[in-house]
């Protein structure tokens, strides 16, 4: 009797999880289908849309990589992402370290203040920032994105790193200083190597958040060759007024999956950033 109840509960659990996994992943499964389906099969309303009624094809992928700017979008995304990672590290690591180490009253307040700026949304800032971009002659330039994306990476990453640095005991630094390192030397040679996992987290986030960004890229860049994937795929893979569904789905799929895999490993740390203080 008890084991029957147990089996029923297991079954319920798997059904529930299966349902959620289906809901979460179905649009991506749908991209896989469209990516490899022949147009004739894709656009026959009577065909079963879940199956390959004709042999699969690589045509859409070929079109995507060789006849659109897709590889350019990937490259632009990579360039912007790496530059934003560099700027974020140079700014957020020292700030977070200082706030974590010398935080009495004002440090904590300033830390929370910096975190709150993360809540100021791009949809309030993008109009004035578009004027900044045109004032500095950066419209249609990847530099505008590189300059602006740290507005969301710096506040969040500073807050996240503050938490990491707080967990490194002060004694280690003090010992290093007794052994002859300067205050700054103790930070760069002792604490930073210990905080490497926090720094790696920041690298991943600054990159993925830049890759996900939509509204600034949509506002600042309209030349096809300069677009990033997050706007290039939705706005450019259209011929006339007709979406080219095959290449469109292929582009969305190819750009999504690698970043999703990396992000999944780090999501718990990302969430620790939000909830720091609320769970302990």
């Amino acid at each position, binding site marked *: 009797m008890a084991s029957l109840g147990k089996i029923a509960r297991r079954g319920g659990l798997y059904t529930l999880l299966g349902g959620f996994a289906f809901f979460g*992943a179905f649009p991506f499964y749908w991209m896989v289908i469209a990516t490899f389906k022949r147009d004739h099969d894709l656009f026959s309303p009577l065909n079963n849309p879940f199956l390959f009624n004709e042999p699969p094809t690589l045509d859409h992928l070929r079109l995507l990589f060789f006849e659109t700017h897709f590889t350019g979008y990937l490259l632009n995304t990579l360039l912007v992402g790496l530059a934003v990672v560099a700027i974020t590290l140079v700014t957020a690591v020292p700030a977070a370290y200082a706030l974590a180490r010398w935080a009495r009253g004002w440090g904590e307040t300033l830390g929370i203040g910096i975190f709150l700026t993360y*809540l100021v949304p791009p949809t309030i800032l993008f109009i004035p920032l578009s004027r900044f971009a045109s004032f500095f002659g950066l419209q249609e330039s990847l530099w505008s994105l590189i300059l602006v994306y740290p507005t969301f990476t710096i506040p969040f990453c500073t807050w996240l790193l503050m938490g990491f640095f707080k967990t490194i005991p002060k004694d280690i630094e003090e010992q290093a200083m007794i052994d002859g390192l300067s205050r700054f030397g103790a930070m760069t040679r002792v604490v930073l190597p210990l905080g490497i996992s926090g720094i790696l987290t920041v690298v991943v986030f600054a990159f993925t958040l830049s890759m996900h960004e939509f509204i600034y890229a949509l506002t600042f860049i309209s030349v096809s060759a300069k677009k990033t994937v997050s706007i290039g795929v939705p706005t450019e893979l259209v011929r006339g007024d007709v979406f080219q569904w095959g290449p469109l789905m292929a582009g969305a799929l190819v750009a999504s999956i690698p970043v999703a895999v990396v992000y999944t490993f780090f999501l718990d740390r990302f969430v620790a950033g939000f909830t720091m203080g609320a769970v302990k």
Partner: protein
Amino acid sequence: MSGPAHAAPSPAGGYGGIADREGALAKLLIAPAVVYIAAMIGAPFVLAILYSLSDATTGDPALRLVGFRNYREALTDPVFRLALRNTFVFTLVSQTIVVVLSRLLATALLKQFRGKWLVRFLILLPWTAPISLGTIGWLWMFDSIFSPIDWVLRYVGLLGTKHALLGFQTNLYWLGVPGLSMASVIMVQAWRILPLATVIQLAGLSSIPKDLLEAAEVDGATPWRRTLMITIPLTLPITSIAFLFGVVFTFTDLVVVYVLTRGGPVHTTQVLSSWTFFKGIEAGDLAQGAAISLFMFPVLAAVAIFILRMARRTEVV
């Protein structure tokens, strides 16, 4: 340079170069972040307020202050009022769904089972993949002719025959019919925020001390009672955090609406953020755009105050 807050003498404080003076070093290390934030978040925010009080356009961006005219104009514009209402419906409905589903999902994920990593990866996909690309998948699923949802409905006989429950037409036109298009964008937004809320809830659930629940069980509390009297009150702060972040990300974002409907049909899915974009950038009316975007600010400020309070409270405990 050390202020009164640094009354305790540090081992190396007071002499040596800047590398050894704590107060100065602290300020030097924080300065770049603070300067950047002031220049790229503070200044544009002030500029947004100034634009909203001016008559600037992309053609003539000079700042001439005209008072509150833009706000008055926005409030009398029927599209703006519709967008304001839609924003609240879009945010509250999607986030209520998210809170309920994320709690359910987090409870399930707490259990041990085989293939957890795969289930986790699939469930997290809507949040980990770039949202503009994920939404493209939905755009194809909502296609007016080739929608697989319609295909299934036709297959089981709910659609496309004379006496079918959902009508005789062959398709539902998910993004083309006013009420249905709103339901569609709400569903996709809930789909997108659900993973984030789930992981936050998971953190809250796993922080409940096990012995507390076991003690209650020993004392004869039923599962329902344990949930009601222990789990829900103890996880209330974290659930609120999940809800508040969901609200911020939904209230101010335009990706789902922009990719799926562009606010259509006839503005029935228009929200404040998308209307800001269409007015301020596409139509070039910087002043109106800035004013519309600032209508989002009171809600953001309220959320920020809530989050601050929560941070304070947990700090005291």
